[in-house]
């Protein structure tokens, strides 16, 4: 079975990349193949990279408060490009209410400050295993 491939993305103007880099390093050490987009990416650039890299999950880091605009836009573009079977998850300074609102639109679990990297890795591993299985079954 191929390794789990994750695109770690920084969307928008936000330059806070400590979290994204720490999570990317932890994922790499856990055996994921990690592609990091670098900073200041538009939703279009992120989705294009997700398609090209054939990833299992897109993990966005947003600490600028623009999450209610950027997550739905990325999700919309993922549907347009036919990769709705890819998980969209992420983290940042996002209130519980906003997390719930984004989840109801189809975004996966989102993680706030203080989350252990192991929790993020377990979530993505679990999601990918379940969805690969269901794809095979279909």
């Amino acid at each position: 079975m191929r390794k789990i491939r994750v695109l770690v993305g920084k969307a928008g103007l936000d330059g806070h990349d400590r979290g994204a880099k720490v999570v990317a390093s932890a994922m790499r050490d856990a055996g994921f193949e990690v592609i990091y987009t670098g900073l200041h990416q538009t939703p279009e650039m992120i989705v294009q990279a997700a398609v090209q890299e054939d990833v299992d999950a897109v993990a966005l880091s947003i600490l600028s408060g623009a999450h209610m605009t950027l997550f739905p836009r990325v999700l919309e573009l993922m549907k347009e490009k036919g990769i709705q079977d890819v998980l969209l998850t992420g983290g940042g300074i996002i209130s519980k209410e906003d997390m719930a609102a984004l989840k109801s639109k189809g975004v996966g679990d989102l993680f706030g400050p203080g989350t252990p990297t192991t929790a993020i890795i377990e979530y993505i591993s679990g999601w990918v295993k379940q969805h690969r299985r269901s794809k095979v079954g279909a």
Partner: protein
Amino acid sequence: MAKTETKQPPRKAEHAAPAAMPEAAAPKRLFETLSGIPIKPLYTEADLPKDAATVGKPGEFPYTRGLHPEMYRTRLWTMRQFAGYGSAEHTNERFHYLLGHGMTGLSTAFDMPTLMGYDPDHPMSLGEVGREGVAVSTLADMDILFGGIPLDQVTTSMTINAPAIVLLAMYVVVAERRGITPDKLGGTIQADMLKEFIAQKEWICPPRPSVKICVDMIEWCAKNMPKWNSISISGYHIREAGATAAQELAFTLADGFGYVEECLKRGMDVDDFAPRLSFFWDVHNDFFEEIAKFRAGRRIWATIMRDKFHAKNPRSLQLRTHAQTAGVSLTAQQPLNNVARVALQALAAVLGGTQSLHTNSMDETLALPTEEAATVALRTQQIIAYESGVTETPDPLGGSYFVEALTDRIEQEAMQYIKRIDEMGGIIQAVERGYPQKEIADSAYKFQQQVERGERVIVGVNKFQTDEEITIPVLMIDPEIERKQIERTRAVRAKRDADKYAKAMTALRDACMSDKNLVPFVLDAVRAEATLGEISDVFREAYGVYREPAVF
């Protein structure tokens, strides 16, 4: 390492850490500072510096014990709370509120589009307007932001970097229109671009033209704004990105020496500009380490400015600093606990001898601060200043075996980094090679691993967690602000004198192709009501846009 079995999504992820830790394997006690400096069981006279002159007296070279003979007995630090959200009107209201509650200096937080030099109607600004700070795109916005504030009586700090030259010009022109000349204006622009490439990651152009523009401002301010700090050389963002205390000190001081060298290359006299260079430290959790860091920083700066750059004016040797409590240390879990963290950090900054201080609000890991949270943060400073008694004598910890030993140790570690950077050919080369960036990312990851192993305790996060959800009110930003800001910016573009605008912009474009100082040209563009985004576009065309290599 991570388990890969499928599990329920960890909804209460924050309560699970350190998930993989079996009961029996208690995390080891580190007996080291937050930055990894080993701590001995006992410190004695033997740990004091061999040469007592390296400690000296407050107000005397090398200023280890503080810049002034009596420190806070003569004058308290400036209580300068960073504020900015939504529109210029919102932030102006918050300024008036904080000044009414005893704040003694203004400090402006700008939103992401402003920080990156984009107008609100640029596609990159989508969803970002007014969210992380105040949106200022035009001279009209700047006038509203400082409405009713006597610019010749307050000092104003602006946390602005890549487009700092534009915001400086806007501030000068707003004052000019109120009949106040630049020499009357006191304050600081952050303007330190080197730390942007190292840590904060907000930029327009590549490092070399960015530094050129910084030096233009240092040069222009040295001649025209004697009360203005033309740069605030910042360790804050470097630390927040994950640096250790010694790395914060080393990379920041190396940035400072980098600017000094660039100014000298232009033929400026060191004593003409060095007195207006100012600094900005983070104050993290490790109490004694932070105090030692402030003391070591002053000593290194004074020594190198004297011995390497031959500064003669004592003010050129004095490292004046603003400080801010560590945003990165605050937790989203049990947010009220942050009040205690901020109080301890603020106390360390005061015992370290800071000139100015911002105390973070307890709710900053959740959103921008509410008025109540910002007030508690300010009151924390006032309690230290007026109730704790620590202001009654300078450097009360001077001579402590432990604090002096730590001061020496941090100085040594920082000096090793500074030497390594010199060997690379200076800080600009080191930044272009990604050296400080990599060192910081490695420290950040190491720290996170220690937290996840339980070796570093974060109260409420990996120990003493509660299942109970603790909520506090958070500030919401109205999405309408973005629409209104776009309208206002477009109205300015439509109404201004087109000829005057075109002339000023052509002159600015030409100046970018020469080695002329750009400040007078940006002032004219601002007088002609060019917007922040339009002026930044001129820089983009002239110097190119910086793209960071995506490495982790």
